[in-house]
């Protein structure tokens, strides 16, 4: 395998693991039961360390090692996780992310600039560990001696009697036929150090009559005392490494290394306890004692035995129960993880984008074929193209689905943000996350992070009152931020709400008048007033904080969201809190559209926005019609867009629905549904709010896509945009 590629994988994985670790850390103080979170944190640290070792990234290994050691103690219950430690571990996460980023930037060794920070973190980590030792001196006597690891120098240190390399060998069947002698390797190995113990694993040996004397059936478990490094030891088996299974565990490795080994070995189902012994987790003395108690003689074929041996070892106190439990849990978890891994594959997102582009071209080409089929009135061809367009539609949906990701990961990032910002502000604030499983397009997810960050910070800073004010108002001292996501008619709705003081209408209005954003004598509805906070240069916070209050936040949020063809709205109840609702399209690439014609221009209306189409009718002299007893105001697209020419005799009204609003759009002709591949329009057209993009029709002509939200805002004449203009 290409090492660079592998390194990329390592970087990606590490980032994911660090994210997991961070989430788990932040969840510790929420959930009462810590064990699951701690295990998750430990696993993350452990995996990073293990993988970093593969790439000889010693600085990462050294750092993670200490983190892991502390976590291990926490896991074993020798050290209790407290708030201070969580903060420390979060800093460690950041530090590791920093190292990973440096790695991604091509830096393979430690960065001297950040080294002092790392050293400081390490000292703090050790301080927590040292406390653990004092409290549980007894644990130090445990045969595992896990926490006794002095940490960084895994190679040159003085080792205790039981700290050996562990080498697990399974020679390939053909090794003898290839002219290799397993014994020769062991002899050569002995030159690098001392083989302390060796156990032959004859489990693969078939019954005598089936045995082929020319094949090698043997495996070896070796405890090896050496000052050589992993590379040198692995080098011994260089000639046979292709067809042999060789696993090397360095001294002082965690129990989980051994568990990994157990899981990976071909005999994994059998003799768990015995392999624990072989791994050096328990000494042979303890093994003898344990075996003594075992009523049946050791029978490798009997699956019950390992369990028995394990439990006997635990019973005899030779192995702490947690080791066996960890071994079992690890086994289970690893197998589950493996099952998941095999169901998903990593794909470069560029490849997906290319696929979506191609599907887009396919749709346009398909539409053209369809049009020609209709034009030449060939029934067979029409049948063919209609089957084809059905399939293309499915391909489109499947391709778009590939890019869909759950919003949960984005939401979870805010656990950390809320945690940190709350600390910074000196407020007690929790985060509730809902609807993490809602899916949306990856490109949207990538772009929504920053606006959401603004909104969350803003809610924490301005929304949530200080603790004493809250208590005085009869609210719990702990403020709550809630992130919620759900799907609604082809869009995803994300709500950021807080249970803070709410927006103060008078104050906003006064400020808006002061800043000249709105005329003083203008009557505004509540929601119009609230939405003034999205105007550029608006901020009512008296105190400008580090986080917000400079009035640059909310209008940027609005602009970013509008750029994604989304909309943002705010509702608030004074004293009870504020909710900001962000509405975004599910995808930015392809939509189901509905074609309408006015004069010679063709427009696309997103199908999700259309409720129905009705025949043109109007109350005399008015621009509204009677829709089953309800007043439906409508706008003539021809007038709005100043398209020349007179209306046709049979106009139609398209009934549009946006949230709770409904409006009609009078057009000349209805042309029907059309799969619309969105082509971005030149930035030149950014001022044309009512047009969100363009598409290419089957005929090769360009049609413009209407932005229904902006259109409604423009015609209602009350929206903030119209106010500004």
């Amino acid at each position, binding site marked *: 395998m290409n090492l660079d590629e592998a390194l990329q994988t390592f970087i990606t994985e590490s980032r994911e693991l660090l994210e997991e670790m961070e989430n788990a850390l932040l969840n510790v103080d929420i959930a009462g039961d810590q064990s699951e979170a701690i295990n998750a944190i430990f696993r993350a640290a452990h995996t990073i360390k293990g993988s970093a070792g593969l790439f000889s990234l010693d600085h990462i290994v050294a750092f993670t090692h200490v983190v892991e050691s502390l976590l291990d103690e926490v896991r074993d219950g020798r050290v209790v996780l407290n708030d201070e430690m969580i903060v420390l571990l979060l800093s460690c996460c950041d530090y590791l992310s920093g190292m990973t980023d440096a790695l991604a930037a091509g830096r393979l060794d430690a960065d001297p600039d950040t080294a002092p920070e790392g050293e400081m973190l390490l000292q703090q980590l050790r301080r927590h560990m040292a406390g653990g030792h004092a409290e549980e001196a007894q644990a130090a006597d445990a045969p595992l001696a896990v926490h006794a690891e002095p940490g960084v120098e895994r190679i040159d240190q003085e080792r205790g009697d039981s700290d050996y390399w562990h080498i697990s060998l399974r020679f390939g069947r053909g090794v003898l036929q290839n002219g290799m002698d397993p014994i020769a390797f062991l002899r050569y190995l002995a030159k690098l150090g001392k083989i302390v113990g060796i156990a032959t694993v004859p489990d693969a040996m078939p019954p005598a009559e089936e045995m082929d004397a020319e094949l090698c059936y043997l495996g070896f478990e070796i405890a090896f005392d050496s000052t050589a490094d992993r590379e040198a030891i692995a080098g011994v088996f260089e000639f046979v490494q292709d067809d042999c299974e060789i696993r090397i565990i360095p001294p002082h490795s965690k129990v989980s290394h051994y568990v990994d080994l157990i899981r990976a070995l071909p005999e994994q189902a059998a003799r768990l306890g015995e392999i624990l012994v072989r791994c050096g987790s328990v000494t042979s003395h303890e093994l003898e004692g344990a075996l003594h108690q075992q009523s049946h003689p050791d029978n490798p074929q009997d699956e019950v035995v390992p369990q028995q041996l394990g439990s006997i070892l635990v019973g005899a106190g030779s192995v702490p129960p947690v080791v066996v439990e960890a071994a079992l849990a690890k086994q289970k978890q690893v197998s589950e993880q493996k099952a998941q891994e095999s169901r998903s594959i990593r794909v470069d997102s560029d490849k997906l984008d290319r696929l979506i582009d191609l599907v887009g*071209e396919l749709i*346009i080409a398909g539409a053209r074929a369809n049009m020609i089929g209709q034009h030449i009135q060939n029934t067979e061809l029409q049948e063919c193209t209609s089957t084809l367009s059905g399939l293309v539609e499915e391909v489109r949906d499947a391709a778009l689905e590939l890019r869909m990701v759950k919003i949960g990961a984005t939401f979870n990032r805010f656990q950390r943000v809320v945690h940190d910002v709350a600390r910074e502000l000196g407020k007690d604030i929790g985060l509730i996350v809902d609807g993490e499983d809602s899916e949306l397009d990856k490109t949207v997810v990538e772009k929504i992070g920053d606006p959401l960050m603004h909104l969350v910070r803003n809610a924490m800073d301005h929304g949530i009152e200080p603790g004493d004010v809250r208590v005085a108002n009869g609210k719990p001292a702990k403020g709550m931020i809630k992130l919620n996501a759900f799907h609604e008619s082809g869009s995803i709705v994300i709500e950021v709400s807080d249970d803070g003081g709410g927006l103060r209408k008078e104050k906003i209005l006064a400020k808006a008048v002061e800043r000249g954003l709105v005329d003083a004598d203008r009557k505004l509805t509540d929601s119009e007033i609230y939405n003034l906070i999205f105007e550029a240069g608006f901020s009512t916070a008296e105190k400008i904080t580090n986080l917000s209050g400079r009035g640059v936040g909310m209008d940027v949020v609005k602009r970013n969201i509008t750029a994604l063809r989304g909309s943002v709205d705010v509702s608030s109840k004074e004293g009870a809190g504020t909710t900001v609702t962000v509405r975004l399209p599910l995808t930015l690439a392809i939509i189901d559209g509905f074609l309408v014609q006015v004069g010679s*221009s*063709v427009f696309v209306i997103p199908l999700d926005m259309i409720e129905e189409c009705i025949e043109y009718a109007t109350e005399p002299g008015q621009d509204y019609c009677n829709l089953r007893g309800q007043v439906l105001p409508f706008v003539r697209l021809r007038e*709005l*867009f*100043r*398209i020349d020419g007179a209306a046709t005799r049979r106009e139609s009204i398209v009934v549009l629905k946006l949230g709770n609003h409904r409006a009609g759009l009078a057009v000349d002709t209805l042309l029907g549904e059309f799969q619309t591949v969105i*082509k*971005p*329009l*030149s*930035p*030149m*057209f*950014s*001022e*044309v*709010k*009512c*047009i969100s993009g*363009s598409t*290419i029709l089957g005929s*090769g*002509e*360009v*049609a*413009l896509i209407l932005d229904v939200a902006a259109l409604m805002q*423009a015609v209602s*004449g009350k929206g903030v945009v*119209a106010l500004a*203009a």
Partner: protein
Amino acid sequence: MNTAAANVVTYGSSAIVALQSGAALPSQFLTFMLGEDQYAVGILHIKEIIEYGSLATVPMMPACVRGVINLRGAVVPVMDLSARFERAPSVIGKRSCIVIVEVENGDGDGKQVLGMLVDAVNAVVEIAAGDIEAAPSFGTRIRPDFIAGIGKVNGKFVILLDIEHVLSSEEIVEMARGTVATHHN
């Protein structure tokens, strides 16, 4: 000049040949007509010349933005140069065509492809640096900042356009803002 490609297009054939030959030098310019006046644009900006075809108008835009066209799958805006120079919009005739050019985006983030609607394409001419004079500060009928210089071709003056300015997106956005505002009031 080589006339091998003359059957491909019936107008400005020499211009096309020069374009295809790939021998363009910085001092080569494409000349074209707007009404009675001749203008020129540096050939390195030019990607291709296409016939005037179907075009979709974009509402609420100033008159100098004629609309958008489908250029092999990409949607490209087309400017009416005549309207941009504050004259009457071009009337589409037999020799009308769209010159596709590539200009730097105003904010420096990449290039933008645009079309210029012109009344006719003439030829590719070579103008030596010595034959180019700076634009006079007054006396031209178009805005001085649209002019990169004035070249001499066969004893006649040709206005060399500074298309980065002529096709400036920002200015058009500004103009559009005005158009949109009047729309609402």
